[in-house]
């Protein structure tokens, strides 16, 4: 027996079933990737992560875990090629641009000194696209922090402070979250880098009131002069890997 279905209803069912299938596929691929990763099978893990991101390009969790696996396997160029294709397919995905930017950052510690600058510049381009598409806390925090890494001669620290201040405005309207402490540290560092020591100290103190056990804030407030300089600058050493893991955003 053939049941007659209205064409619009038919189209809707096709769309819903397709979506469900995509979501199921992405989740399955993600689970497969985690399993392969647990077995140190990077080849399979990366392949499954990529399938998951292809299926759900704006899913920040999938892209983030993919990059973490990339760092472990040291296949940085693979990630750059992958994200380049994805952002071309989905130019409006803020999360894709954000993770594409982080993929550049992830490669910096293994690059030569000149390539580090090129990678940082390209990361900044992606962070800007991300924040333009979705001006939220992570977008401003990421780009602001990225500006602070640039050598003084480029005078990008004031741009970093401006972004971090916007992130702080957003943060103050949000409920208390564990990752908020990062912004107190970064904004204070930004003030220090732009020769605003009093503002830096005030920011770190405000952070310590909200996060009284935070060691990074305590160390900054306990240091001064050259010790403070060494402490802050050690955090901006391009040879050291920056923690680009975003999972705090959904677990903390």
């Amino acid at each position, binding site marked *: 027996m053939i049941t007659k279905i209205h064409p619009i209803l038919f189209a809707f069912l096709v769309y819903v079933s397709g979506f469900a299938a995509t979501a199921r596929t992405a989740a399955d691929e993600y689970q497969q990737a985690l399993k392969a990763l647990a077995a140190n099978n990077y080849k399979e893990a990366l392949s499954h992560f990529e399938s998951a991101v292809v299926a759900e390009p704006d899913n920040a969790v999938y892209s983030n875990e993919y990059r973490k696996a990339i760092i472990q396997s040291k296949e940085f160029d693979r990630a750059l090629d992958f994200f380049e294709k994805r952002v071309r397919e989905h130019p409006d995905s803020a999360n894709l641009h954000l993770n594409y930017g982080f993929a550049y950052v992830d490669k910096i510690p293994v*690059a*030569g*000194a*000149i*390539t580090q*600058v*090129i990678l940082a*510049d390209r990361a900044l381009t992606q962070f800007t696209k991300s924040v333009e598409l979705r001006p939220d806390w992570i977008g401003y925090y990421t780009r602001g922090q990225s500006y602070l890494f640039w*050598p*003084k*001669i*480029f005078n990008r620290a004031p741009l970093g402070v401006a972004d971090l201040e916007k992130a702080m405005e957003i943060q103050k309207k949000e409920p208390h979250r564990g990752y908020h402490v990062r912004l107190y540290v970064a904004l204070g560092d930004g003030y220090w880098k732009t020769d605003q020591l009093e503002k830096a100290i005030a920011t770190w103190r405000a952070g310590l009131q909200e996060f009284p056990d935070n060691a990074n804030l305590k160390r900054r407030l306990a240091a001064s002069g050259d010790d403070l300089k060494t402490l802050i600058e050690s955090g901006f*050493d*391009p*040879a050291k890997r920056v923690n680009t893991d975003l999972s705090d955003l959904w677990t903390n």
Partner: protein
Amino acid sequence: MLRNDIQVSANRSVLCMVVLLGLFSCTAACGVAQSAPDKQRWFEDVTHKAGINYRHHSRHFNNAYSEIMQGYTKLGAAVAVSDYDGDGFEDIFVTESCATCKNHLYHNNGDFTFTDVAKAAGVADGNDEENASAGALWFDFNNDGLPDLLLLRFGHSILYQNLGNGTFRDVTKAAGLDRYMNAIKAIAFDYDNDGFVDLFIGCYFQPTNLFHPDTARFFPESFENANNGGGVIVFHNNKNGTFTDVTQRVGIHTTGWTLDLGHGDANNDGFEDLYVANDFGTDRFYVNNGDGRFTDKTETAIGFDTKKGMNADWGDFDNDGFLDIYVTNITDDYMREGNFLWHNNGNLTFTDVAQETGTFDTGWGWGGKFFDYDNDGWLDLYVVNGWVSAGKESYVPDIFAMITKPGIDLADIRNWPPMGNKSLSGYEKKKLFHNEGGRSFKDEAARHGLDSTKDGRGIAVADFDNDGRLDLFVTNADDEPFLYRNILPTGAHWVGFSLEGTRSNRSAVGTQVRLTANGRTYLRYVNGGNGFGGQSTMRVHFGLGRSERIDGVEISWPSGAKQKISSIAVDHWYKLTEGQSTTNMHEWKPKR
């Protein structure tokens, strides 16, 4: 005849030695009393007093790329030291780079003054519209006991034969060395131990005529992996005054942007190994197989780097009996490469210990030399730096705007922004790293007045007044040089050797001397010109600290011969000839 035979007088009485020692000591002590502005300062700037203050001038190119190219003859402020006339005092050759500028041969008058005799000697005319002087090397190519002079040029280099009467003759063509090379560094050592030193020339640019280039694509293709430079050319000494290009045959395959070459016997097997410091990319380490060929061991010995190698000096900084290597790179706010202090693991591998020893950051580094300035038995390091010290504006944003352009062709000079009056890593303070017992180094440059902010290039270490305290000559780009007299207060003991080979090459390059005193054995060796822009003395010097007694000396000649000296007095220079008796050795002193 200016040449002095510098013979040890077997008949000289011990009493005479004591008297002479007393005289030397007085000279040294008087020097301290008269000239030391501060007892804590152990170097005195005597550049003007010595009459040696002619400034360097870089070249203005008359072509479309002049604004970019001028900076590259700032590399040409070089120095090479040797006692060319055998009078017992080390003389100094200094290069100039502008088209009408003369090179200088400063004859040491023996009283810490110098006279420029370049014109009379026939070695002044190193610059013209088609050639720019870029470096120099003293080496005895014909084993006649007279140091000959190789003038390196962007263009055609010149080999001057020392005629022994205070003059020199151009023998480049007869020697088979007449070819276009953008040569900037040369060292000479006997890689096959046949008794004659061979020639290793480092070239920066490929052999493009820089004065009339027929292409605009002669700049580095990459900032980190450039392989379109001039590389290294090896000339074997045919023992008859001629040389043969054996680069391919000996296995030296590199086309990097070579700025320095350094040789040393890394594994103490009696054969000299080679470190090549390359700008814009990977340094190279070649192991001498002992069969007339080298093997590229870069990957296992030091790994592949992407830095800007400028200098390669060898010395046993931790007195463990193996030669280590110091390489300068670029370390600034915008590019934190860091230098290499390659600690020799004794198995043809090296570990970089620059960070933990405090020798990592010397800005935009150039020449760096091991020497024991305080005679405490530990090799210290002097490092000069600074690329261009000009106006307040920085060239950094321009250069980074260029390199971040997608698809930029860096090899095309037309893509490079003009520098104008901008600075790049300028006004950097020089570093004098005092060796703290082989574990770390402490910068003492300010204390001793060696922290100039001029754009330093080459360093030559030598004892210009034969007082056992090592002095420094430093070249600066587009500026006056520095002659620093070592006025270390007396107290720390020392001993030194001037070596002459018989079966080995006559200048004894590659000879290792192991001296034992106070329970410690020190290794020093004769090097054939290591270090960017500067050739130091070929004598071997040991600081002995409080040790008044030497327990033994062992000399390992390149021929394989070994000689031992059981006991000699401290605080003297000695002349030692391969194969001659080492009993009853007496001090050597200059003729004048």
